[in-house]
């Protein structure tokens, strides 16, 4: 199997013209053979490794590449 990190990065880059943040389900769908809770471990590991970062609406959490997206500027947290 290809490096999960590469799979996630490739997917995010392919969508980067439209949006910078993704739901867990969007990323988990990249690993159809995995159980959801395995995918959870993998994707959260990417957060711990600094590959991804969380963005929370308060009620929902999304994932994106650190520092990307227009909110980053709007929130003044560069």
């Amino acid at each position, binding site marked *: 199997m290809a490096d999960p990190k590469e799979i996630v990065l490739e997917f995010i880059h392919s969508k980067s013209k439209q949006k910078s943040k993704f739901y*867990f389900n969007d990323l988990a769908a990249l690993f159809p053979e995995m159980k*959801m809770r395995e995918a959870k471990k993998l994707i959260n590991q990417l957060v711990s490794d600094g590959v991804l970062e*969380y963005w929370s609406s308060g009620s*929902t*959490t999304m994932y994106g590449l650190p520092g990307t997206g227009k909110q980053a500027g709007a929130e003044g*947290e560069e």
Partner: protein
Amino acid sequence: MAKHATPLLDQLQSGPWPSFVSDIKEEAERRHKNEKNVEYQVPVDVCDDLLGILELSYKDGTTHWKHGGIVGVFGYGGGVIGRYCDQPQMFPGVAHFHTVRVAQPSGMYYTSEYLRQLCDLWEMRGSGLTNMHGATGDIVLLGTTTPQLEEIFYELTHNMNTDLGGSGSNLRTPAACLGESRCEWACYDAQELCHQMTNEYQDELHRPAFPYKFKFKFDGCPNGCVASIARSDMSFIGTWRDEIRIDQEAVAAYVGGEIQPNGGAHAGKDWGAFDIEKEVIDLCPTECMWMEDGKLKINDRECTRCMHCLNVMPRALRIGNDRGLSILVGAKAPILDGAQMGSLLVPFIKVEEPYDEIKEIIEGIWEWWMEEGKNRERLGELIKRQGLAKAIAAVGLTPVPQHVMEPRHNPYIFWKEEDVEGGWDRDIADYRKHHQR
């Protein structure tokens, strides 16, 4: 002299109920005096500016806060809510004003020592404003800046042995009633189960991977003091399946007027002498009680354990001995498709360490919801979309009449091929042997 004039808020300093305005003003003064020489890590006038921006909202009738989604502590996807004010030049003290949710001990008992530690931390590294507690149950610390978040987390975990709570698409901080600690109606140790499940699922609480938020609440009995049936995706409500224990002498004492009904809850008005027929037997929803030779009789098999008779006569009637809990699923507030109450999933389960049976139910539901749930779909909405039967199947239970208030109103049963004899594969030639075209 206050930094900002607050003529509108000042009008909330009158009236008998405790005034949050007076409280915040007093805190603002204490910060300026700083008698203990605290090395404030957020602006000293944070409380003044909070009052200032709130006064502005009172004047113009609109909020002045913006949401922020990035801030948090490393490796956690929840526990911190980003807040920024939209008038930072006028109110620099609250330009960045993030919320920190802190996990509360179940039942919300504290020692003054612990709370003082929390106060010291929050006075130095935050605004000094809190919510005791937020609606979900967390200790909520209101107002700090981004550089303080890791420092606060470090002090909480290292000095106070306390973790953050949940937010976002996580398991939210579970909450329990005070349970067995001080209530005769607790059918299981709600505090302990809440604590154990909170710790068992720390990963789900801090690292989001659910379609949306998910709440556990633990009520010790059907009175529902933490409202689990209305506001938790998974509601654990204590119950029993044997007989209500009756003390006939105490029943007689209630009938004779020696003991106040309902623990004296109605003492503020003259409701007349206690009438057991009118106040207990006639109000029993299943009509399973009667008096016989001066003794109270209960047909326990017909009882649905609504708690009314126990509530009215706590000294005469006690919960049964064969105790456990019911699990209901899918409660939520109206957004989006309308409010939902929890629907019964597990009629009865024993509460026994290490709680493996309960964990199996929880994990069965999560597996199903994580696979099938759409983005931002609460468990209750998935149950509505796919049907309660799917939820029952997800946890491997057999459907029973207890699962419904009444059977379905339509015959549109979506039969599965394997449930119909002979399957669905038919030969048109066979049909044509008996039917012309």
